[in-house]
């Protein structure tokens, strides 16, 4: 049996709450956490330090609520999905009938790029659909940009408000449509200048050698190895699944390396490609895993679907 607003719902009950004051935040979050305590449901508060402190104060007795550092939990969308899925599977295996998670998803108001987290918010409607999960994503309208709020409303099928109401959200879009029409990731300033390196139809080995020569002065050996695996997978994918010509470009900045791989095809048919793992056994030779691995290994991955083709942009920060 599931308790609270998600009672009777099958699968993922994905809800947002837009708040404009600490009181409004607590008006949603405290009953959410307390309901989990009372029902004995696994209840996670995956919050940034500020909201975590507010929630602890508002709750008083935190027994039965697991607080997890939000900044570490939301560092990389593909990793976040993999970690949550493993956690949810373990909780369900131990008999959980509902899992509650309130999470602070990063956005420019908290210092993060949004494009990857917009894809995350859409994709998790699919990625967590097989779990009895009630997920609450509060957004502080005082610091959240308008275009982000617009995406939040398009990616959450339910809305909670501080007065205690829970209602379906008419602005919710099918995540497949949202992801297909997703606006472009912001252009990195490095991309505005001529590339330091450009190759047409490179083999994966040629691409690795060129990127290694360019990037080794900026990146540690470990990050360079991570980037080379990502580049090799993306170039191989473009050759196997894309349409020629495949164009590799790279730019080196003082603190990062930005690599783009463009082909003339439409990009992967699966709108969730890259964010969700597929079991290796599901497809021969691990095909489909390359884009996902790239998401996990790189600092940022942006996908661009445009009329003239598909581009994967990989960014690796120095360090």
């Amino acid at each position, binding site marked *: 049996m599931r308790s609270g607003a998600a009672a009777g719902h099958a699968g993922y009950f994905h809800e947002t709450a837009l708040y404009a004051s600490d009181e409004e935040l607590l008006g949603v979050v405290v009953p959410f956490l307390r309901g989990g305590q009372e029902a004995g449901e696994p209840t996670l508060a995956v919050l940034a330090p500020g909201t975590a402190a507010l929630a602890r104060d508002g709750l008083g007795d935190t027994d039965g609520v697991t607080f997890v550092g939000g900044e570490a939990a939301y560092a990389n969308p593909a990793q976040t999905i993999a970690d949550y899925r493993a956690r949810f599977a373990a909780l369900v295996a131990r008999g959980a009938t509902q899992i509650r998670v309130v999470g602070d998803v990063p956005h420019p108001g908290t210092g993060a790029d949004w494009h990857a987290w917009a894809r995350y918010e859409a994709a998790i409607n699919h990625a967590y659909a097989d779990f009895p999960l009630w997920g609450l994503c509060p957004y502080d309208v005082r610091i959240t940009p308008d275009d982000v709020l617009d995406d939040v409303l398009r990616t959450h099928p339910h809305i909670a408000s501080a007065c205690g109401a829970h209602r379906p959200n008419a602005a919710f879009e099918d995540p497949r449509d949202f992801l297909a029409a997703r606006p472009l990731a912001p252009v990195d300033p490095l991309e505005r200048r001529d590339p330091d390196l450009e190759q047409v139809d490179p083999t994966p080995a040629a691409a690795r050698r060129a990127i290694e020569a360019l990037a080794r002065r900026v990146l540690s050996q470990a990050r360079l190895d991570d980037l080379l695996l990502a580049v090799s997978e993306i170039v*191989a994918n473009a050759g196997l699944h894309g349409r020629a010509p495949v164009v590799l470009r790279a730019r080196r900045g003082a603190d990062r390396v930005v690599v783009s791989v463009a082909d003339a095809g439409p990009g992967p048919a699966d709108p969730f490609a890259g964010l969700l793992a597929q079991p*290796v056994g599901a497809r021969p030779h691990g095909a489909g*895993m*390359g884009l996902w691995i790239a998401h996990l*290994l790189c600092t940022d991955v942006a996908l661009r679907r445009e009329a003239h083709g598909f581009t994967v942009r990989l960014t690796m920060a120095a360090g």
Partner: protein
Amino acid sequence: MARRPFSALCAYDRAQLDTDTLTGLACVHPLAHGLRAPFQLFADDPGLALRGEVDLAGAQLFAKALQHAVGPLDGAEVVVDVHELTFIDVRGLATLARQAHSQAGVLVLRGARAVVGRAVDLLGLTALRVEVRP
């Protein structure tokens, strides 16, 4: 033979053999003169050694060489020395895992780069155990 002070020279007439066959021969010899293969896989105390680069270009060759090199394991572990492996892609790792799994054993990738350990973990390839080089 890998445990004995033994040298062998295998000579092939390249006029009699096609390129694929020659590459297949080159990849299973630690030293090959006049032949190029992207990787070499050969017996080496205490198990196997894998050198060079494993990627899309040598994927089929790698799967074939591995089938010849790794027979039934019956629950045993076989060490694959990868100190001189400069690159292996996701497909290559999956190929290693599949061969270990199909022979009911575990391949221990000894002396791997950190990225190999990370990729094997992420991919959940339980038929591989990675010993990352210090």
